[in-house]
């Protein structure tokens, strides 16, 4: 990921420095540049992007050979990315034979399907009984329900709420700013392609989930009609009653879950795993409380310094008590230990009969052996903490057993640094335009006012909404700004032409690649080694 965005920065900055031909700075200008805070940003970004000038260039400069090698490497990287993405979504399919203590390894689908937590990490936590499994939630619960009623309701529930989770797929063509652009850059096509790919993948996943749900339903039906060959992966009625007999309402989604919910490390409040994986850090943002909220540009200079330099990312805080660094602990139920990691299958679970369950009779008495097995198994590995020893005090975020949001979203650092470099790139582009403008119309009255306004309009120019005039610029420098705008428009045109050329070149390369496909596949191992 980082590589791709760096690439983008390269071609940008390289077009500026190479073809725009900034003339050698005169003494006056360099004096100005060193005084302002902007050039530092500029130089840092050229260090980051400049070294690749030769290797990637801005298209057309390179010979066909090295170009195709580059494309090959890039497509490799893309393949790898696609593979990871596919694995991620595969992990989000609820499969009923992948169950832990009557719950599953993937979410029910209460929220939309755009889940971006690390599925591999969460699956492992669930398998190790460090997080509550994803249980199928009950929409409602009433204590007056009899056990039979409860069972009927439970047995009607699907594995996954497909309609909710994948509802985005139907209502596509969301308002996409890309579609409003007059000129579509090469990145536009790249983005469209990615979007289409993701959509196809989601459709595929949705269908797989549908099949799985169908299998679940038919197997359940088989189980109820065919007493002899029961599917052992389907939760037994005993297990269902044990789990859902006294459910708890998750305070965030308001759905009912088996009582073994995760508990917040700080304030001991319950949270279901499905809500837990929704919690995330805020997007990287500039730090608060530093005149960043004044929004008036009379403090412009100070604002520039504060806003443009740093972005921060803070750990997610507890939704209940707002303590920083939200984390949860989980105590597995002391009397249930079934499914993956256990010898007892979900279908073989038989619970101990207690006095208040006398109205319920187990329908297969011949399973007594397994029943004993079930009862004895909790003494195995991780379930040493019985509910009798439930935690009464808060724990530190780094205490053993605490699962924090950063653990299930380990990519936050990468996100932060990519947001930072994006900002830096923007600033560098703005500075480049700014500097070239200064050099072009080197008139002498460089008071601070004009300088600021220029930066402002060059920033708006760099974000491609081109030649729109700022409202506050209508004073004595109108003519001057007009030329600035003309320059920016020219620049935008030039950039888009380059983009277009690059796109064409890519299409051609793509076609070429299709033909000798077999050939290149044979080459593959050589290149990777």
């Amino acid at each position: 990921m980082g590589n791709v965005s760096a690439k983008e920065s390269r071609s940008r900055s390289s077009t500026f420095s190479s073809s725009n031909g900034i003339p050698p700075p005169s003494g006056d200008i360099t004096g100005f540049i060193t005084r302002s805070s902007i050039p530092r940003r500029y130089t840092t970004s050229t260090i980051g992007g400049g070294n690749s000038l030769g290797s990637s260039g801005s298209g057309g400069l390179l010979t066909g050979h090295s170009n195709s090698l580059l494309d090959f490497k890039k497509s490799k990287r893309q393949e790898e990315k696609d593979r990871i993405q596919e694995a991620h979504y595969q992990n989000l399919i609820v499969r009923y034979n992948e169950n832990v203590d009557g719950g599953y390894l993937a979410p029910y689908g209460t929220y939309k399907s755009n889940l971006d937590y690390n599925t591999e990490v969460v699956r492992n936590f669930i398998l190790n009984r460090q997080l509550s499994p994803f249980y199928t939630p009950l929409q409602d619960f009433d204590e007056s329900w009899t056990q039979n009623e409860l069972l009927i309701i439970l047995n009607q529930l699907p594995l996954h709420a497909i309609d909710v989770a994948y509802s985005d797929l139907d209502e596509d063509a969301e308002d996409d700013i890309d579609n409003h652009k007059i000129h579509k850059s090469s990145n536009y096509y790249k983005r469209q392609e990615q979007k289409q790919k993701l959509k196809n993948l989601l459709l595929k996943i949705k269908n797989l989930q549908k099949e799985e749900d169908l299998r679940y339903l038919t197997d359940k039906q088989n189980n109820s009609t065919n007493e002899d060959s029961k599917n052992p992966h389907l939760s037994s009625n005993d297990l269902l009653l044990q789990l859902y007999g006294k459910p708890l309402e998750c305070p965030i989604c308001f759905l009912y879950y088996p009582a073994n919910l995760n508990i917040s490390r700080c304030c001991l409040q319950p949270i279901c795993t499905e809500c837990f994986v929704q919690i995330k850090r805020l997007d990287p943002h500039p730090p608060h409380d530093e005149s960043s909220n004044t929004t008036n540009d009379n403090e412009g200079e100070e604002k520039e310094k504060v806003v443009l330099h740093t972005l921060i990312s803070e750990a997610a805080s507890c939704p209940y008590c707002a303590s920083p660094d939200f984390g949860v602990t989980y105590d597995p139920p002391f009397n249930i230990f079934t499914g993956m990691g256990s010898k007892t299958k979900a279908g073989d679970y038989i619970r101990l009969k207690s006095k208040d369950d006398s109205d319920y009779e187990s329908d297969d008495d011949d399973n007594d052996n397994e029943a004993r097995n079930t009862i004895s198994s909790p003494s195995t590995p991780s379930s040493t903490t019985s509910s009798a020893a439930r935690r009464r005090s808060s724990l530190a975020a780094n205490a053993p057993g605490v699962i924090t949001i950063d653990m299930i979203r380990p990519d936050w650092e990468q996100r932060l640094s990519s947001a930072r470099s994006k900002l830096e790139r923007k600033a560098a582009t703005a500075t480049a335009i700014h500097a070239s403008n200064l050099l072009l119309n080197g008139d002498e009255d460089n008071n601070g006012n004009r300088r600021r306004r220029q930066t402002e309009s060059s920033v708006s120019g760099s974000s491609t909404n081109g030649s729109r005039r700022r409202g506050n610029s209508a004073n004595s420098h109108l003519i001057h700004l007009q030329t600035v705008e003309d320059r920016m428009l020219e620049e935008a045109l030039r950039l888009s032409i380059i983009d277009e050329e690059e796109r064409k070149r890519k299409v051609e390369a793509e076609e070429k690649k299709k033909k000798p496909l077999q050939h290149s596949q044979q080459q593959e191992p050589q290149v990777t080694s």
Partner: protein
Amino acid sequence: MATLPKRIIKETERLVSDPVPGITASPSEENLRYFEVTIDGPSLSPYANGKFQLELYLPDDYPMCAPKVRFLTKIYHPNIDKLGRICLDVLKDNWSPALQIRTILLSIQALLGAPNPDDPLANDVAQDWKQDEQKAIQVAKEWTEKYAVQK
């Protein structure tokens, strides 16, 4: 849009069955994510006796992101701008999914009772507030009388 999350249904039910004194919120018929809200001005504030109309919308990501709330009635308050937008931390970065429509409306009511001109949204109002609080309060009262008191 087709199916409404259980959370929204339950919140709506509870708002109706157990309303908050001084606050009403009723979902619109066409869109159950859109609420028409009224908040009574706190009795010891310049907004006393006023009944302020607001609109509240629950975005797609609710409860993972905050509801969108806006004053429809004109109000003179340093943290509420001309368009009725509200500067309140829990509506922005400090939103938590454990908060609800109910709690957010209570926070807004509390904001009416405790204007904070140091973190303004309406700069002109905040300036007035800081320069001459008595006068600003007087204006707030007049506006309340003019726009928010039902005749």
